[in-house]
């Protein structure tokens, strides 16, 4: 303003403008104090909104990754428990049957073989278990079931043996890759791609009921069942016992693989957690308004506005009109 010259309109406009500007600043400070977030994100990020958004995207991806890992972990835990059940079914029976048959305890071997045949039903039941409507061991065919019933398996297997040429181990062929088990009994599918985390680390697939380890276990149980009707039960039971004992170890190996995947992803989860914390902190340092600083600013503005009101009141009484009476 040019000193020495004044007009009422200038004075009024100037006071109006100043009080408007102060009120606006006061509004912003109040909002920032109550929300704890800066109002002007563009200014807060120094115009670099893309960086802010990069952090948001990263945080969202970390959250997705974490829930993917959690989901995998839950399923792996269930699969592991199921495999533990399978292992328990196989474990003592194989070696015991083998020992009984070798020692000539035919009755004991026979009863163990009968038991094994009955356990096939239990193993298949476990392999057909579901979680939240999702078949655990059926690969991409999550509707399940993974395998046909024990009765069907044995019927199909006996037919295959009958059709097989003399001298061939029809049972081994049946359970081998591309054999009758895979084509006729296994109702699941190959596991689809499991996807990867945003870091590129692959997620792991669940084992299916078509895994060689599982096929081996079923083969042992089937051999035990077949030995009951075989011409040379003792020899067959020694064979079945050996297969079953090996199968137990195979299933443990399968569980170990699953455990290793779980461990690997658990570590990934810790890494993600650490990254989440640091990214959140970095984001907060940009967007959050320091309450102490905001409160101080608010107080300053308040005092300024009050001063302006006082000045307005004083100026309006400072007029010759008031002194002409």
């Amino acid at each position: 303003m040019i000193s020495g010259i004044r007009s009422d309109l200038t004075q009024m406009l100037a006071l109006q403008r100043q009080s408007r500007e102060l009120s606006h600043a006061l509004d912003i400070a109040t909002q920032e104090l109550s929300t704890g977030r800066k109002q002007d994100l563009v200014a807060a990020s120094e115009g670099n909104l893309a960086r802010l958004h990069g952090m948001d995207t990263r945080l969202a991806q970390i959250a997705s990754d974490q829930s993917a890992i959690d989901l995998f972990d839950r399923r792996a835990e269930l699969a592991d428990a199921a495999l533990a059940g399978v292992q328990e079914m196989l474990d003592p029976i194989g070696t015991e049957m083998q020992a009984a048959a070798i020692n000539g305890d035919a009755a004991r071997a026979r009863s163990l073989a009968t038991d094994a045949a009955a356990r096939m039903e239990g193993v298949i039941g476990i392999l057909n278990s579901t979680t939240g409507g999702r078949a655990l061991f059926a690969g991409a065919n999550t509707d399940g079931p993974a395998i046909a019933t024990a009765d069907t398996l044995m019927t199909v297997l006996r037919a295959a043996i009958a059709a097989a040429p003399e001298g061939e181990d029809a049972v081994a062929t049946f359970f081998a890759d591309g054999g009758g088990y895979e084509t006729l009994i296994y109702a699941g599918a190959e596991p689809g791609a499991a996807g990867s985390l945003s870091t590129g680390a692959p997620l792991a697939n669940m084992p299916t009921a078509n895994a060689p380890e599982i096929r081996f276990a079923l083969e042992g149980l089937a051999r035990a069942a077949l030995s009951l009707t075989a011409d040379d039960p003792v020899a067959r039971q020694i064979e079945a016992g050996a297969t079953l004992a090996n199968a137990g170890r195979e299933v443990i190996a399968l569980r170990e693989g699953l455990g290793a995947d779980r461990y690997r992803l658990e570590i990934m989860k810790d890494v993600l957690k650490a990254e989440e914390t640091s990214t959140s902190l970095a984001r907060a340092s940009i967007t959050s308004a320091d309450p102490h600083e905001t409160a101080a600013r608010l107080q300053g503005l308040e005092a300024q506005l009050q001063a302006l009101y006082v000045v307005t009141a004083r100026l309006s009484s400072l007029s010759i009109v008031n002194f002409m009476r």
Partner: protein
Amino acid sequence: MSLSNALSLASAGLAASSKSAQVASENVANALTEGYARREVVRGPDGTVTTRRAEDVVLTAARRQATSGAEGARVTAEAADRIAGALGLPSDPASLSGRMDALDQALTSLISTPESRSLQRGAFAALDLAVTGIRDAASDLRAVREDADTAIGAMVTRLNAAIEDVHKLNGAIVGKSVARADTAALEDQRDRLIDEISGMIPLRVVDREDGNVALFSIRGAVLLDGRPEPFGFTPTATILPEMSQEGGQLSGLTLSGRDARIGDGRGILGGGALEAAFVIRDQTVPQATASLDAFAFSLADRLTRADASLAEGQPGALLDDGAALDPEAISGLAGRLTLNPALTDDTSWRLRDGIAAEAPGLTGRADQVIALRDALRTRETLPGGATSRDLATHLATLSAELNSNATRATRDADFARAERVGLSEQEAAAIGVDTDAELQALLLIERTYQANARVMQTVDQMFARLMEI
């Protein structure tokens, strides 16, 4: 000097005093009227009293120029704000960026549990929201452009009317000033009209004889000099993204029937709100729209390429107004982007099995979903662009750019407004009313009046004495 001469002089003094009091009271009454210039009493050599408007030619011209700049900056800032708002702040979940992030998350969830009906529907809903978001952003941009065109139409109408009014007032002022009548009120009115015009086009006001004024644009176009020069413009109601002034579908500006170049920063009518509106219509919005179109094309193209179920040339998940994408016709795509009708809430399993899949495939097979998500995350260039980025970053970069444009434009507008306010205050201080000064003058007027009255009384007494002789 004769007594009667003294008497008539005193009487003239009384008349002058009451005229001055009238001027002072008028000034006080209008002390807070914006655009009112203080009246000053001018005493003629023959004792006559006339009034004159206070003026400060330099300040007024500077304030008018600042007004042009401020109005232009305001129009630019408002449009930039709306353009940035069309895409939203990248950190806001409702923004287009937020929607693209939600799509990525929905696909990621679906990868873990591809058989889930609710996750399939969630991914479909996220894709639908993203497409709707792109279309809404495109229609917001289109509205900004149409509004700019409408605003140009309104400004041109207003300009023609205001220039015509200034012309008429010129005539009235000349008539009154020849008759030595008071022209101040008419001049106030004319000044307000000129202020209004200078918001749209920066003006140079040149005084002609007898109180006439001529109006030129600062850069030299004649708007009014003896006769008003008419502006011409035809608003276009519906503006599609591919329409342009160069293409002949949009109207340009004419002055006195000749094309007037505006909107490139060098035209003779540039510098005010009118040019700003042309820049928005012909440059700012088309550029933002083109970027959005390129983004929309890239999204649709990535999804199509990632879909293994599609044969060569078969339309993918996103369509251009119901038809397959055409890389040669990207312009305006964002506004026409639709979902493939094969993909609905009921058939959202097609996100897992491919758009062309006849029936749902293996429930737990996520290969297709992984391909879709990874396609969005792959670093690629946009059509017409040079930098490889994943799709979300492309979008975030675009909206960050639009937002910082808006911030810059707002800051410019704030500066321009502050400059105008400062000059307005200076001008008001120079030519406005100071009631203290007026009241001070009133005290003097009172004294003068008393003195003149006393002179008359004395002369009257002298006459009375003469009569007694």
